[in-house]
C-alpha cells in the first residue's frame, strides 16, 4: 500500500471500535447464553464473531469484509425464521395444539379440578410459625383449624385459637399473622400452590386473600402407562399420534400438544377436494394478478418518470411529491377507502361513470378493481425507482451516444430504456414475488370474493393462493391452523422461488452476473 498512513487512520479507528464492540458483546453474551442453556444462540454469536475477527484482521478476504456482516444478520433473521416456518409445516401446530406434552398434561389436570362440597370456600390466614416459616391456617367446615403447607396438614388444638363473630380467624397461639406488606411479598408464590387435604386427592388452593378452596382433580395422569384416567368414571384416555389424549368413545381431552405429523399437512393441501377443485382457477389468477400489477405499475411509473424528468418542467418537485402520496399512506386505510369508493350505487366512481359498474360483485370487474387499486398503490414506487434509475444513467453513456450523432429518440429506445430495464429487472422480479403473496391487497378489498359458487363457496374469483389458503387454514377445525398455513406458504414460496429463478436466468441481468 502506497497510501500514507494518516489517510487510513479514521478507517482504522472505526474498525477497532466496531470490532472491539462486537468482541466485547460476544465475550459478555456468550457465557450468559451458555449459562442459560441457549447453546444454539451462543454458538451462532461465537462463530460469527470469530469469522468476523478473522476476516477483518486478515488482508486476504476483501469481498467478504463487505458482505459477511450483512450475511450474518441475514442468516439469523431471515433464513432461520424461514427454516423454522418450514419445520412448523410438519407439525400440527394449531389451536388446541400449541404447547408441549407436559404442559398439556398439566393443563388437563388443572382444568379437572372440581370444588368438593357446597362449603368448599374456607377462611384462611397466612401466618408465620415461631421458626419464621410461612404457613396457611385453614378453618375447615368440621370446625377445626388446620396448619398447612405444601407438604402436610396438621390439626391445631381447639383451645389455641379464636374466631370472630363472622367466623374469620382472629388469633392463633404461637403464630403471627402476616401484615399486608408481608403478604404482598409472598403472595406470588401461592399462584400454583396446593395444600394436601384431609382425604386422599383432596387439596386446598388459595382462592383469594382470605380464603382457600377445597378441590379435587377428576382426572389423573399415569406416567408409567402414559394415559389419563377419569377418577370418577374410570375411563381411560390414551395418547394418539396427533397430539391428544382420546377416550374409547373418540372424545379428545383439551388441550392437546404439538406433534410431528410428517407430511399430513401437505396431504391435506393436495388431497383435499376443496383445495383441488378451484385450485386451477386460483392458480391462474395467482400468476396473472402480479403480472398485470407489475407490468402496469412499471410502465406507468417509468412513463411518468420520463414525462416529468424534463429540464423544462418547472414544478417538477411538486409533481413528484404529490405523486408519491399514495405510497406514503397506510394500505389498510387507502384500500378500505377504495372499497367505499367502488360501491356499486353509492360509490363516487360509479357516480362519475356513465354506467353502473358492478366493481366488487362481478367476477371480471372485481379482478379489474383489485388490479386498479394495486396500480394506484404501487405506481409511486415504480415512479420513484425509475426516476432514480434515469438520473443515475443520464451521464456519459448518454452523452457519448449523443456525440455519436444518435437522435434523442434513438438514444431513448436504444440506450436509455434498455439500461433502465436492465437495472430494474431484479426489482421487477421482487415486485412480482411481493404481489404474488400480497395478502392485504386482496383480503381488504374483496376478501377474495365474489365467491365461486360452483366450487362449494370456499374460493373467490379474486383469491390468490395466499388469501385462499388463509381462509382455509385460519377457519378450519378449531380455528387457526399454523401447521397447515405453513405448509401452504411453503408451497407458495417454492413456486415463487422456482419461477423467479427461471425468470431471472433468462433476464439480461444474468449475463451481468456471469
Amino acid at each position, binding site marked *: 500500500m502506497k497510501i500514507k498512513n494518516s489517510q487510513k487512520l479514521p478507517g482504522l479507528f472505526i474498525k477497532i471500535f466496531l470490532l472491539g464492540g462486537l468482541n466485547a458483546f460476544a465475550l459478555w453474551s456468550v457465557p450468559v447464553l451458555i449459562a442459560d442453556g441457549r447453546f444454539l444462540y451462543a454458538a451462532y454469536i461465537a462463530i460469527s464473531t470469530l469469522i468476523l475477527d478473522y476476516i477483518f484482521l486478515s488482508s486476504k478476504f476483501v469481498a467478504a469484509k463487505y458482505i459477511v456482516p450483512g450475511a450474518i444478520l441475514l442468516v439469523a433473521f431471515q433464513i432461520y425464521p424461514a427454516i423454522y416456518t418450514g419445520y412448523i409445516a410438519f407439525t400440527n401446530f394449531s389451536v388446541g395444539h400449541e404447547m408441549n406434552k407436559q404442559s398439556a398434561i398439566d393443563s388437563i389436570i388443572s382444568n379437572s379440578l372440581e370444588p368438593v362440597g357446597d362449603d368448599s370456600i374456607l377462611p384462611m390466614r397466612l401466618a408465620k410459625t415461631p421458626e419464621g416459616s410461612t404457613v396457611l391456617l385453614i378453618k375447615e367446615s368440621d370446625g377445626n383449624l388446620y396448619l398447612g403447607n405444601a407438604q402436610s396438614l396438621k390439626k391445631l388444638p381447639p383451645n389455641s385459637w379464636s374466631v370472630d363473630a363472622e367466623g374469620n380467624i382472629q388469633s392463633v397461639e404461637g403464630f403471627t399473622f402476616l401484615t399486608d406488606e408481608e403478604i404482598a411479598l409472598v403472595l406470588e408464590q401461592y399462584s400454583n400452590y396446593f395444600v394436601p387435604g384431609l382425604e386422599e386427592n383432596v387439596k386446598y388452593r388459595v382462592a383469594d386473600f382470605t380464603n382457600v378452596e377445597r378441590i379435587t382433580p377428576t382426572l389423573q395422569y399415569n406416567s408409567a402407562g402414559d394415559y389419563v384416567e377419569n377418577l370418577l368414571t374410570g375411563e381411560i384416555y390414551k395418547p394418539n399420534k396427533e397430539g391428544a389424549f382420546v377416550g374409547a368413545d373418540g372424545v379428545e381431552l383439551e388441550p392437546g400438544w404439538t406433534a410431528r405429523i410428517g407430511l399430513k399437512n401437505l396431504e391435506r393441501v393436495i388431497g383435499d377436494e376443496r383445495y383441488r377443485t378451484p385450485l386451477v382457477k386460483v392458480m391462474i389468477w395467482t400468476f396473472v394478478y402480479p403480472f398485470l400489477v407489475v407490468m402496469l405499475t412499471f410502465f406507468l411509473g417509468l412513463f411518468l418518470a420520463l414525462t*416529468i424528468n424534463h429540464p423544462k418542467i418547472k414544478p417538477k418537485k411538486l409533481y413528484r411529491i404529490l405523486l408519491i*402520496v399514495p405510497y406514503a399512506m397506510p394500505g389498510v386505510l387507502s384500500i378500505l377507502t377504495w372499497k*367505499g369508493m367502488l360501491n356499486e350505487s353509492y360509490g363516487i366512481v360509479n357516480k362519475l361513470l356513465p354506467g353502473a359498474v358492478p366493481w366488487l360483485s362481478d367476477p371480471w370487474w372485481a379482478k379489474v378493481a383489485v388490479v386498479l387499486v394495486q396500480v394506484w398503490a404501487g405506481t409511486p414506487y415504480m415512479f420513484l425507482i425509475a426516476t432514480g434509475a434515469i*438520473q443515475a444513467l443520464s451521464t456519459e453513456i448518454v452523452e457519448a451516444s*449523443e456525440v455519436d450523432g444518435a437522435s434523442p429518440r434513438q438514444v431513448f429506445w436504444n440506450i436509455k430504456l434498455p439500461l433502465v430495464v436492465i437495472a430494474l429487472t431484479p426489482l421487477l422480479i421482487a415486485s412480482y414475488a411481493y404481489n404474488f*403473496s400480497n395478502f392485504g391487497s386482496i383480503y381488504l378489498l374483496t376478501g377474495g370474493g365474489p365467491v365461486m359458487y360452483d366450487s362449494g363457496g370456499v374460493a373467490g374469483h379474486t383469491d390468490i393462493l395466499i388469501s385462499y389458503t388463509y381462509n382455509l387454514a385460519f377457519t378450519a377445525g378449531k380455528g387457526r391452523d*399454523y401447521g397447515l398455513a405453513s405448509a401452504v406458504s411453503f408451497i407458495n414460496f417454492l413456486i415463487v422461488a422456482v419461477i423467479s429463478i427461471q425468470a431471472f436466468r433468462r433476464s439480461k441481468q444474468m449475463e451481468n452476473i456471469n
Partner: protein
Amino acid sequence: MSTELIVRQKKMTFQKWVRVLAWRHFIALLAIAFALFPLIWMASASFDELGKINTQSLIPQYPGLSNYRALWENPDQPYWLWMRNSVMIASINAVLQLAIGATAAYALSRFRYRGRKTTLMTILIVQMFPQLLAVTAFYVILADLRESIPFMDFGSPIALLIIFAGGALGINAWMLKGFFDSIPSEIDESAKIDGASHGQIYVRIILPLALPMLAVVALLSFIGTMNEFLLTAVILGGNQEAITLAVGMRQFIETDFQENWGAFAAGALIATIPVMVLFIWLQKFVVSGLTAGSLKG
C-alpha cells in the same frame, strides 16, 4: 441531460412548448388527480365527527375537529409519542439499511469471488418468503433471548432494528448493486492506479456517485418502516410507549365493534407529513447526484 442541451432549448416557440411540454404537464396533472382522488374522501372522513370510512358524501355531515383533537387528548393512545417513535425508528433503520446494503452491494458489484452468484440468488430468493407466518419464529427467538440479553426483548426498539437489519441484505442491496453496476469500472480502475484502497474507492468515489440511488433507497426504507405492521406489532406491541404509528393507529379500528375511522383517517393523513418532508429534503440529493455525475467526466 447535458448542460448544452438545456442551453439549446432555452428559446422556445409556443408551438414547440405545446409539442414538448404541454402534454407532459397534462399527463402529470392527470396522474396527480388519480393519486390524490381517494385522499379527498379520507380527508372528508377525518373532518366528520361521525367519521365512517364509507360515508359517501364529500362534505362532512357533522363537520368538526374532534377526530384531530382525539390525537392529542387520549392518554391511552399517545399519537404524538408514536409519531416520534416512528420517525426515530424509521430514520435509524434507513441509515442501517443503507450502511449494510450499500456495503454489500459494492462487493457484489465490484469484486469477482467464488459464491457470488449464490449470494445474489440467496438474497433474491429469501425475499420471497411470505412474512405472514415468519413472525412466529421471531417471537420464539426473542422469547429465548430476552432473559439472557436485556436489549433483545419485546418492547425494545433496538431488537426491532437488529431484526430489520437482517433484511438489509435484501432488495435494497439488489437495487444499489444495479446502480453501482451502471457506474463505469474504469473510474475505480484509475483510482486504484493512483493508489487508492478498496475502502477509499468505496467511500470517496462510489458512494458520492450513487447519491441519487442512496436517497431513493433511504426514502423507500423510511416509508417501509413507517407502514410496517406485522413484525413491529409482535416485537413492540406489548409496550404501548414504544410502538410506532402503524401499530398504534390500528387500535383506532381494531377494537370490538367501535371502529374509529375518523381518528384513523386524521392520524393517517398527518402521518404522511414526515414522509413528505423527507422526500422534499432528499430531492436535493437526487438532483445534486445528477450534477456530481456530470462533473465526474
